[in-house]
């Protein structure tokens, strides 16, 4: 780890100035569960690290009068899962529950989780996000890499586990910087992109820009659910994941969002699968068709053909859970809208 400056501002304005100083590479520190390991390995080496966790304005979860849930950038996963304002967000809570590790839940922030860097072992070993224009992956071990959106040089998969469900719900981000007057809103879906050149990042934020809040619109009548195919319990990345948000009218799907995770360099919107569902009732057949459609364009790398089936199963099961049905699989307890968060998430 290289020497770096450390700053701990207590206002947004102070953080803004610290993060946007020209000529300095800066990094936001919130939970540090991803940044610190990356710095220790030398994958990133910012000149200045700005800890935003002590900014009071970022510590709360609040619901505004339109029913939007505002989640500050200092809010931890555990705080989110325990907050009554998020009870109606079963998909996101399911993912936090799946993470299992109490330490990770307590330390990682919700916004930070959305910004976790890819777990690709070539990236983490210093070969760059594109890993020699994808060659390291193709010639190497690609078992955990992309099956969709992988025709360019980027072969990694987007790391965030919360992003698919929050995108499906239409979440947005409040973004500050580099200058005060640059404050803007971006759709969470637009945070992510597939890099094409060596200097590109997997997110669209520019230097000096940082996220202060995640804002989740009211779920309303929508049915939401997430399903992660996990090798084992705990914080390891799922092998494939899907989140859905559905609006039904008279038993038929009126509107559907289906977002895949862990299968592409960015959270992957399965639009054909969503279209196939529209106008249909939810039953074994229609969810199976949606599952197949979701991976219709998938092209496996040498070692990851199995992920196509897993992604398809994830879509099918997320839809079944949203519909209140059993998945038929080997699943732990599923979280549905309920008054009580799962007991293991209750922190003293």
């Amino acid at each position, binding site marked *: 780890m290289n020497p770096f400056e450390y700053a701990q501002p207590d206002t947004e304005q102070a953080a803004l100035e610290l993060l946007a100083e020209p000529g300095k590479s800066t990094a936001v520190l919130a939970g540090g569960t991803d940044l610190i390991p990356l710095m220790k390995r030398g994958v990133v080496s910012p000149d200045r690290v700005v800890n935003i966790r002590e900014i009071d304005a970022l510590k709360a979860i609040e619901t505004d009068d339109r029913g939007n849930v505002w989640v500050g950038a200092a809010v931890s996963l555990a705080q989110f899962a325990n907050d009554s304002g998020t009870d109606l967000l079963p998909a996101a809570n399911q993912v936090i529950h799946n993470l*299992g590790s109490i330490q990770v839940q307590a330390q990682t922030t919700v916004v930070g989780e959305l910004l976790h860097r890819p*777990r690709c072992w070539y990236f983490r*070993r210093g070969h760059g996000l594109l890993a020699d224009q994808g060659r390291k992956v193709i010639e*190497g071990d690609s078992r955990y890499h992309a099956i969709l959106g992988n025709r360019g040089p980027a072969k990694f998969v987007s790391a965030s586990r919360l992003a698919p469900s929050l995108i499906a719900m239409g979440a947005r981000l409040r973004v500050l910087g580099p200058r005060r007057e640059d404050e803007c809103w971006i759709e969470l879906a637009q945070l992510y992109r597939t890099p094409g050149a060596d200097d590109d990042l997997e997110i669209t934020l520019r230097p000096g820009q940082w996220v202060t809040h995640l804002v989740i619109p009211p779920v309303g009548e929508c049915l939401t659910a997430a399903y992660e195919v996990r090798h*084992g*319990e705990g914080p390891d990345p799922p092998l494939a994941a899907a989140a859905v948000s559905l609006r039904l009218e008279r038993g038929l799907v009126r509107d559907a969002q289906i977002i895949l995770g862990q299968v592409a360099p960015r959270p992957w919107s399965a639009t054909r699968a969503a279209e196939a569902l529209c106008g249909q009732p939810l039953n074994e057949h229609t969810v199976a068709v949606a599952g197949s459609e979701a991976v219709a364009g998938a092209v496996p790398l040498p070692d990851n053909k199995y992920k196509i089936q*897993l992604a398809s199963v994830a879509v099918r099961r997320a839809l079944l859970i949203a519909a209140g049905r059993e998945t038929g*699989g080997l699943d732990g307890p599923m979280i549905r809208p309920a008054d009580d968060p799962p007991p293991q998430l209750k922190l003293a």
Partner: protein
Amino acid sequence: MADTQYRWPENHQARLIGKRTDRLDGLVKSNGTAKYTYDVNLPQQLIVRAVDCPHAHCNVVSIDVSAAERIPGVVLVHLLNAPAAGDEPVEIRAAGTLIAAVAAETEAAAAAGAAAVQVEYELLTPFVADDDLAAAEQAGLTKRAGGGIELDEALGEPGDEDDEEEWEEQTIQSLFEQSKYVVQGKYGIDAITHCCLEPHGTTLYWDGSRLKAYLSTQNVSQTDDGFAGALGVTADDVDVTCEYIGGGFGSKFQPNYWGIAAAEISRQTGRPVKFMLTREQELKVGGNRPSAFLEVKLGADENGVVQVWDSHHWGTSGFNGSTVSVSTVPYVFRPQNWRRKATGIVTNNEPSVAWRAPNHPQACAITQTAYDDLAAAMQADSFDIFLRNLAHIDDPEKAPVYAAQLRLAADSIDWRQHWHPHGQGEKRGSVVEGLGLAIHKWAGTANSSNCLLKIHPDGGVESYCGTQDLGTGTRTVCGLVLAETFGLPIDAVKVNIGSSTYPFSGASGGSTTVGAVSESHRRAAQDALAQILELVANKLNVTADQLEVSGGRISVAGYSDQSMSWKEACSLIGVQPLEVTSSYRRGTQSPLSSANVAGCQMAHVAVDTDTGVVKIKKMVAVQDVGLIMNRKTAESQVYGAMIMSIAAALFEQRINDPASGDFVNANLADYKLPRLGDIGELVVHFYEPESERSRGVIGLGEPPVISGCAAISNAVCNALGVRVPTLPMTPQRVLDALANAKG
């Protein structure tokens, strides 16, 4: 005074032996006061960070340390596997090999220094495909690793005119022709690493010409030799201390080259030195277990009793190119006719070291799966097939023990209720369940051990023994043996272990420690007690054999009013403490310890056929272990072993990048291990009729870690009706196996 007859108390007399005793060091370990090697920091110490090689196969052509030496805080750069200026290149044959060690005032400076070392590498072609025998042969990277043949005498011998090998081949083929069932299969298990939570390393300093080393080691009494030999001093100049260790599993018997380097850096700088491996280095060079892959054809009679076994197995132990011992194939079972061959593969990985029960878990996983496939082919109950094949095992006397253990395990896991023919279970949604079993063996002979015991005139008891507690409860066993013997509570004795200045005790490897310390501590305690009883007998005007010891008192049997407290008894010793030294030598016949255990494990799994995810519902271990000393830690030992089996069966593998050879998952984020929710219900039964108990103490470290993998593999096969040939059975491999079966 007659010679003491060493023996254990009868079952009904034992107060502590066989009961549940909390660990003596449980509290200090839980609250963090216990100092592990990694916790030891000495005044003025330098911290070392090693530069490790990012390439699996290369030459280190040159190394430039000048930039590192200029980093503020860097004190010394010490070359490990790098040429001095002008020397020939040094070939590196495994990723992670330590190239140079940077000693600095702070951890940050050491890390910055390591990053600034400039190494010129010349890349060479790596080979890491340890499962691919043909590729290894083509690359010229195979080594014959033994083999042999044994045929029933009734089959005759080759005639004078016969070519011996041809005759053997014909005989084997005719045995297959006579077999009612013939099964062919391929099985494998990947290399895994020891993954010690506390990485290898040491903190040490020179006190004049004496080296004082805090070393994370399983071998307190003998690593001084390792240091001494390499440093040009004698073992009496080296003191090794290890009070607590964060995992060894067979990988921490030596100071290792980094430990020697720490001593050299300390000698050169005159400062204490702390040199611990990083997490990635720990996984890459701290220790690994060889892979094993096997092709077999077996033939069985109408009852499913194997008549002929014909196998070839291979695998890698790293760049020294060995594989699992051919003598362990097939495992436990020994058909009357067998031919076996083994080939080692040279790969660009660090050479393997002992891993809990060396050879046995892999041998079990690649051979008892074939026995289960025989049951599958017959659509017979695996339980029956294993039971019938006990007719031909390598230690026939153990057959009744295995049979009894299998029945006990079957009852515990409800075998009869849950079993179904392979692949014929009820499917609920996409989930099928299955049962599997496997059996194992181990020696567990007591190691050599000496103990110095002091009884003070005020009643204080302290012992000294150069053994070590791997976390298994050795310290507690020492204490309970003394306390049992003297009729005292366990907290009335002070146990001192973990220093090479104490009397010699053997390394903790091969399940040898509990026997070793039980021997030495019981012998010392009985000898000391005999002397004290003589003094008490004189005082009470009785003979020593009339006395009994319990509840902190020594009394005349049948006359409880004629007694004295332990403290009063000890006051008879005089003004100097009574000192007794005991010595037990490995291999000495003794009523206190013996060897050779059997054991079996059964697994009940559920498999999601849509995702390939396997979940353990329940595992049962049945184990004989002679006389159990501390039931609580004995159970813990088995629980831990079962969890390690689940890890290797479903999660753990070293993943080598096929192009660069690098070990790409060498960190705990990518190296998969089971979590609490992955281990299901674990049940431990000790098989302990008096016939076992009377055999004395036998080691328990290795046996319970052997047959779990095969049992889980067999359970998955029972669920799916399809063998997932190679462990770990990841979702990918399960789905591949299902797809291959569909064709």
